């Protein structure tokens, strides 16, 4: 049977060699084929300490994956049903954690030598870190603390990541001046700061994205213990971890890239434990999130929902927007989130919408771009009476002012308002206002 299999898939060699951690391992091709064709059933593949043919399970499965890919067995063995299913499981790391063997052995970071961190920032970030933490816990702790302390530069965001402000962030020496007080950064600065901390911990990482420093979005992937983790605090500017960590919401930018479910779960527990240590808060699992939605829907069916008039809602929103203290960018994110729950009913009925724009503001003797929100509300619904739409401008400080349709148009014409097009997936629009975009803005 093995000979038939080998003939069909075209394997002539007697041995197969794989390089793991700079050592070459040699396997008998017959043994590998035998294992694939049902030999695996003789082992308890769920046992983390399993040894197969004298090799640790993770290493063996890494070699097996290489073997499958080398001979393209996924395509070649399509008529052996059971083998094919097992091959899929092996490639998806169902039984073992193999990603760590393919991860770079050395750090890849062109800018590491140029990065100098301010001692005040280092002290603040490492303050309170338990000394008995594992390396993975330390890296997670530093990531969360950095997200709590650093803030995305609102001017950079509102300037569509261009102009003077963009150039100032491209100077890598600027990082030496980043402190808990002077804390405004952009994505690639966060990556380099976090990278420097990982380097201090002797953790191997690879900075993604090519090109000159500051020319494009970047993030990094690091290997710690058996985990391969992607860290991108600005996976979204508005809903990324610079915001999430400050309001103790689930993180979205620290992602375990291992395919193996056990390994993924282990890393989730580390995030939960460290997050809890920092803020005494338990992040929700996906299952809890979905059961929350179910309970919310059940609650809606079970109880008669309260009615709240729009003027009361506006008052509540106004009070909270002025009261809450957050850095500018996070405040915009928070107010957008609050608006979505306060005006959820109206949004559902297409009576309310919120749009982020950039507005020019006077700061001392200079003029700079800052993000702001424009609320649009129409009692009859946007579709039915766009002449009755009311607009409000909410600035980054939480101040709310009325706007008319003409004022909005004039401000866009004069360049005092601009749409933010950089770093957004969906084009922002203001109901009833059709503004032509700058052709050169991407």
């Amino acid at each position, binding site marked *: 049977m093995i000979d038939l299999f080998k003939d069909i898939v075209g394997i002539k060699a007697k041995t197969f060699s794989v390089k793991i951690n700079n050592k070459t391992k040699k396997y008998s091709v017959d043994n590998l084929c035998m294992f694939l064709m049902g030999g695996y059933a003789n082992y308890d593949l769920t046992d983390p300490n399993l040894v197969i043919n004298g090799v640790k399970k993770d290493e063996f499965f890494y070699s097996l994956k290489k073997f499958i890919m080398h001979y393209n067995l996924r395509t070649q063995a399509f008529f052996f049903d059971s083998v094919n299913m097992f091959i899929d499981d092996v490639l998806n790391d169902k039984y073992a954690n193999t990603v760590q063997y393919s991860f770079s052995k050395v750090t890849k970071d062109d800018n590491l030598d140029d990065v100098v961190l301010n001692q005040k920032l280092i002290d603040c970030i490492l303050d309170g870190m338990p000394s008995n933490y594992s390396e993975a816990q330390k890296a997670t702790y530093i990531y969360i603390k950095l997200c709590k302390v650093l803030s995305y530069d609102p001017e950079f965001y509102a300037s569509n990541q261009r102009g003077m402000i963009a150039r100032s962030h491209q100077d890598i020496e600027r990082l030496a001046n980043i402190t808990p007080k002077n804390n405004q950064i952009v994505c690639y600065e966060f990556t380099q700061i976090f990278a420097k901390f990982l380097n201090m911990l002797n953790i191997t990482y690879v900075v993604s994205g090519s090109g000159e420093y500051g020319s494009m979005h970047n993030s990094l992937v690091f290997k710690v213990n058996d985990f391969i983790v992607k860290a991108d605090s600005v996976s979204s500017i508005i809903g990324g971890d610079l915001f999430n960590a400050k309001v103790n*919401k689930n993180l979205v930018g620290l992602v375990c890239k291992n395919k193996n479910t056990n390994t993924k779960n282990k890393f989730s527990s580390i995030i939960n434990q460290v997050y809890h240590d920092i803020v005494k808060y338990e992040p929700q699992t996906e299952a809890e999130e979905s059961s929350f939605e179910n309970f919310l829907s059940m*609650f809606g069916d079970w109880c008669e929902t309260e009615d709240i008039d729009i003027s009361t809602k506006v008052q509540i929103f106004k009070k*909270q927007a002025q009261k809450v203290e957050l850095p500018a960018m996070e405040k915009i994110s928070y107010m957008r989130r609050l608006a979505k*729950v306060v005006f*959820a009913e109206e949004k559902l009925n297409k009576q309310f919408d919120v749009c982020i724009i950039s507005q020019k503001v006077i700061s001392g003797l200079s003029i700079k771009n800052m993000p702001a929100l424009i609320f649009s509300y129409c009692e009859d619904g946007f579709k039915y009476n766009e002449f009755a739409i009311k607009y409000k401008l909410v600035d980054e400080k939480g101040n709310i002012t009325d706007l008319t349709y003409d004022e909005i148009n004039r401000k866009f014409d004069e360049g005092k308002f601009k749409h933010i097009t950089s770093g957004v997936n969906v084009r922002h629009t203001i109901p009833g206002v059709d503004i032509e975009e700058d052709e050169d803005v991407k």
Partner: protein
Amino acid sequence: MLNKLREKNQQLLRDYHQKKDYKNETTQKIIEQLLKQDDCFLKMSIEQAFTIFRELNCKRERFEEIYLQVTKPN
């Protein structure tokens, strides 16, 4: 404030259970599940939030104040 609401809910849950008022007990059980999450009030509409306050017998004139407290970032 969220903890106070959770305590209030537990108290009501016990009371309704003792009185064998199963309809209200069910309501409080659903609310118990919703209040488990620290940012629950930023995941539901203000109408749903006010309904929870009503079911927890909060005074109507305090709804707004409570809402501002429970939607404040931690």
